[in-house]
């Protein structure tokens, strides 16, 4: 227990000190990007890992929050109001999407979330007069929370890190909470949970709303980072990629999706400068991990660690 805390403190110090150590703006920005995708993956994992609901429409919350915020800003509203309204709007859409998607479960749920994601993408792509279609929308500057300028790469990284840490803390509490236990119960034995007095539908819907809320927060960070949003950022490929991050890292864990986001974002950005076929590399990594660690990297590595420790014990017993 104490060792866990120590590891956490060291990790926090490393993460905070990161921009001071790297100094290269490109890599600091890359670190911010990783955090944003990690938050997105953690949020979709509330559904995937803890709720057993596979959603292929999670990028739509990036879109709803991003377009919402930029449209408000371009209409002349302030940063704080735009951010709040964008998050509320995007989460409310999430509540509605949940209402529709939870008419079904399993493949049906997946197809409805896919369709909803495509609708959001389609609107962004086609509603030229509002969204500027394929060209996307721009905004000039990042907000200045509490008067602190976050335009510089290190400052933006720290801002993202703070938001990420808060979000992760909330999701961690959620997974350890009575509601989290009920969500996991509803994933494993929905019929039994009903017979124990649990409202399975409401549990899953609330999980959907929470996932879309944190997805929207990630979306807001995304648009602050890029100061630009276009339909490409919210296409089906994005939703699938976020899902892959969670699966690659291990959907049954809190930290798995973060590791998945680190690997996929690094391969996409760093490996792609050295090899043309980085997509193939990504595919190979994915196949190899799933072959040897079907539950993802974090559970797989944990098992390896235990196996590495156990033979010592077994030998001593012999």
């Amino acid at each position: 227990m104490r060792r866990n805390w120590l590891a956490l403190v060291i990790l926090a110090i490393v993460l905070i000190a990161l921009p001071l150590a790297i100094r290269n703006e490109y890599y600091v920005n890359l670190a911010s990007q990783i955090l944003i995708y990690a938050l997105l993956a953690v949020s979709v994992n509330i559904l995937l890992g803890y709720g057993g609901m596979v959603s292929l429409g999670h990028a739509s919350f990036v879109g709803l929050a991003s377009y919402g915020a930029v449209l408000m800003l371009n209409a002349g509203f302030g940063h704080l109001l735009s951010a709040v309204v964008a998050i509320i709007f995007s989460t409310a859409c999430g509540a509605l999407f949940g209402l529709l998607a939870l008419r079904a479960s399993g493949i049906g749920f997946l197809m409805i979330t896919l369709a909803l994601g495509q609708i959001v993408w389609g609107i962004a792509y086609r509603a030229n007069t509002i969204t500027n279609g394929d060209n996307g929308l721009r905004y000039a500057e990042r907000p200045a929370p509490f008067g602190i300028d976050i335009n510089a790469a290190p400052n933006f990284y720290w801002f993202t890190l703070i938001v990420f840490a808060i979000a992760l803390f909330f999701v961690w509490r959620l997974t350890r909470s009575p509601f989290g236990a009920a969500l996991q119960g509803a994933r494993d034995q929905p019929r039994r949970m009903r017979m124990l007095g649990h409202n399975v539908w409401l549990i899953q819907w609330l999980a959907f709303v929470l996932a879309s809320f944190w997805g929207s927060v990630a979306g807001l960070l995304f648009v602050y980072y890029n100061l630009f949003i276009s339909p490409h950022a919210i296409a089906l490929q994005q939703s699938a990629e976020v899902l892959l991050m969670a699966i690659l890292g291990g959907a049954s864990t809190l930290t798995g999706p973060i590791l998945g986001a680190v690997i996929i974002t690094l391969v996409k950005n760093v490996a792609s400068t050295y090899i043309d076929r980085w997509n193939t590399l990504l595919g190979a990594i994915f196949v190899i991990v799933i072959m040897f660690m079907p539950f993802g990297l974090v559970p797989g590595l944990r098992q390896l660690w235990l196996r590495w420790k156990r033979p010592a014990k077994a030998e001593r017993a012999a």
Partner: protein
Amino acid sequence: MTPALEVLGLNKRFGGLPATKEVSLTVMPGERRLIIGPNGAGKTTLFNLVTGDLSPDTGSVKLFGQELLKLPTQQRVHLGLARTYQILTLFPKETLVHNVVLALLGLDRLRWNVWAFLSGQRHLYDTAREALALVGLGSSADRTVAETSYGERRRLEMAMALAQKPKVLLLDEPLAGLSQEERSQVREVLARVPRDVTIVMIEHDMDSALAFAERITLLHYGEVIVEGTRAEVVADPRTKEVYLGE
């Protein structure tokens, strides 16, 4: 006195096959009712209709006078209904105590809390351990379900239902697949259930459950054939015909 459970003219067809035909049943508070019948008699279907896993074509189900049919399963549970399953439905990777805690959460407002640590809810765990002790699983509370025997799982099913302090408890073949010794353990547990709990129990094997029953209902092809006290049902020639295979 209002019956604890009142079933009136219940019909359910699966395609062309009637699973329950005009089933009516009145169970008084505190009663121990045994429902017997050969395979496919519609015993489990009857339970599924009472709990809301299935909805009937026609008929009515009342719990202490309140109509249940329009209510979803979880609300029926909040009114005091609990059941165990013939085919075990547990949470295999979790500990026994966690299984019972999930049962307790089902009736606790705390289940909506997204912030508190579940492991910090001492009262839930204490109550869950008491329920496990009641069925003789006190010392196994921290083992996972996967590590327990079939007989222990049967008793866990019972602990989860009893922990909820139900008014009406439906037991679906709680003795099925158990050894003689395990059967007597389960019977002891049942004998200790207080009288403010009404128990309706399905049993395929009549001999093993006869001692428990005060009144018996015999189902055959979805219909109530015989109903009465233990002595009446056992003495009835139709029981022999349908059940004892003469």
